[in-house]
């Protein structure tokens, strides 16, 4: 019989998600507060500070121009932290995975559970951010409901990217490269703070191949109710990358943890 890795089991993945939720429940009150302060500070500092010089961007107040993108970036940071540092520590230092993998949970189940949890954390970050925007008076229309599934999908996408990086490295220090040379440029050049059309053509082309850009465009479209076919194209891009990357990263984690 030729060997094929066992199929991923959703219930087993859910058990891993539940484990993380049990741990999070213990400290969530402490954990969640910064999630509210962060957007507040951003909006205050950038929106009101920079906004004093830049009144409008593409015909909308500057604070409302940057808010949808900042929301998406908060999901990116939240989900990425979860499947990079936190997974690395559980995998290599705390030996928690040794314990989990000697139960019916297999490496692919474990990986899917961590992805779901990363997406959940991203959603918590994004949800907190959204509530602040709402308080600031943004997003008062029914179309805004679309933002909620989007929080989770974007969280899931960044969880797969983070986990892929984690599955490739052996030293925790290498995450500095991931954050500084990958996530930070995404944060700065995905059209959060200024329209992509201001940038050279080549950068616009590169941006099309990066994940945050599509999230920012989707979010801004939803917030400002610009219902164009472009939104669908951004959504398909995100969905395609997420599915492909999920498939790849489950295989990679299986190889890493079953050898």
């Amino acid at each position, binding site marked *: *019989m030729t*060997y094929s890795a*066992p199929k991923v*089991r959703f*219930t*087993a993945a859910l*058990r891993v998600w*539940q*484990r993380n939720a*049990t*741990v999070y429940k*213990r400290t969530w009150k402490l954990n969640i507060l910064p999630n509210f302060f962060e957007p507040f500070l951003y909006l205050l500092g950038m929106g009101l500070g920079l906004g004093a010089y830049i009144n409008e961007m593409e015909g909308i107040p500057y604070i409302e121009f940057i808010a949808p993108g900042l929301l998406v970036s908060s999901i990116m940071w939240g989900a990425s932290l979860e499947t990079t540092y936190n997974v690395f520590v559980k995998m290599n230092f*705390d*030996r*928690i995975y*040794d*314990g*989990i*993998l*000697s*139960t*019916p*949970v*297999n490496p692919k189940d474990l990986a899917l559970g961590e992805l779901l949890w990363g997406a959940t954390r991203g959603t918590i970050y994004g949800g907190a951010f959204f509530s602040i925007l709402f308080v600031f008076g943004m997003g008062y229309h029914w179309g805004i409901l679309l933002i909620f599934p989007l929080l989770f999908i974007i969280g899931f996408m960044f969880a797969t990217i983070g986990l892929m990086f984690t599955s490739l490295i052996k030293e925790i220090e290498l995450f500095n490269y991931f954050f500084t040379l990958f996530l930070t440029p995404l944060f700065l050049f995905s059209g959060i703070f200024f329209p992509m059309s201001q940038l050279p053509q080549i950068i616009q082309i590169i941006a099309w191949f990066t994940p945050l850009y599509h999230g920012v465009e989707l979010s801004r479209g939803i917030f400002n109710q610009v219902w164009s076919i472009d939104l669908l194209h951004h959504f398909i891009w995100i969905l395609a990358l997420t599915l492909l990357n999920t498939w790849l990263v489950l295989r990679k984690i299986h190889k890493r*943890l*079953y*050898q």
Partner: protein
Amino acid sequence: MGTPSKIIKASKLTKIYGDLTAVNGVDFQIEAGTCYGFLGPNGAGKTTVMRMIYCVTPPNSGQLTVNGLDVKHNMSSVKRSIGVVTQDDSLDYDLNVLNNLLVYARYYDLTREQALRRAEELIEFFQLGEKRLQNVRTLSGGMKRRLQIARALINKPDVLILDEPSTGLDPQARHHVWAKCHELIEQGVTLLLTTHYMDEAEQLCDRIAVMDRGNIVTEGSPWDLIKSEVSPQVVEVRGDAQHRESILEKVRGQIDFHESLSDRLLLYTNNSNPLYAQIQKMDIPVKTLLSRRSSLEDVFLKLTGRELID
């Protein structure tokens, strides 16, 4: 009565990591309801054999079945019937004692009620009651090991794997763990353990596979191994190398065989008392002179030329 059932069967089981053959085509069969031990020094391949049995490492070749199921193609089912206590503790340090058990029970899809009932039973059995809601960090070494064993038993496994169960424990905690192991054997659990302590192997195991450098060098009950591989008694001599040499010269004709180690000389014989008396009367200074029963340590030495703990 049929033939006793073999719960775990391995044939030509092999594991290779790069240039290292960790397990080199070993065969063994483990009878249900017994305690089976893998004895050998660090790096002998014991842990790798265990890891293949509980499906976290795939064999490169050979056959390995648990309850008739192949370990490579039935990972979840095999793991459902096995409880594992790893060598380095893999407890969840983000959780308290009770939650370590409850969260673990979820991995086996136990319901909340089943999990609670089982967890309380195990907390009682392993005397962890006063630490029930304490973080795992606050537990002593012996308590952590007991909690790990408790956790491994959450799903009432057919087989309990203990990788070096008493390494790093003080003598009192070791005996406590051994006592619990005996009770589990009485309850019908098949115990599978690795150890480099021969006293642990002799205390607990019905059968032993002696491992060295990826091979099983011999296999049998502790007493049979001692009887068949070495003479029943030993005289141990410590002292200067040259003094040991002269003693050996004088008694060479009367012993079955000997082992010369860096710090001592071992003389194997059927009856050590006369030999002991004879050496005592010699005019050769020795540091210590000791007459004892042969042990698994001696079996290992004889078969591999090396000591178990170096």
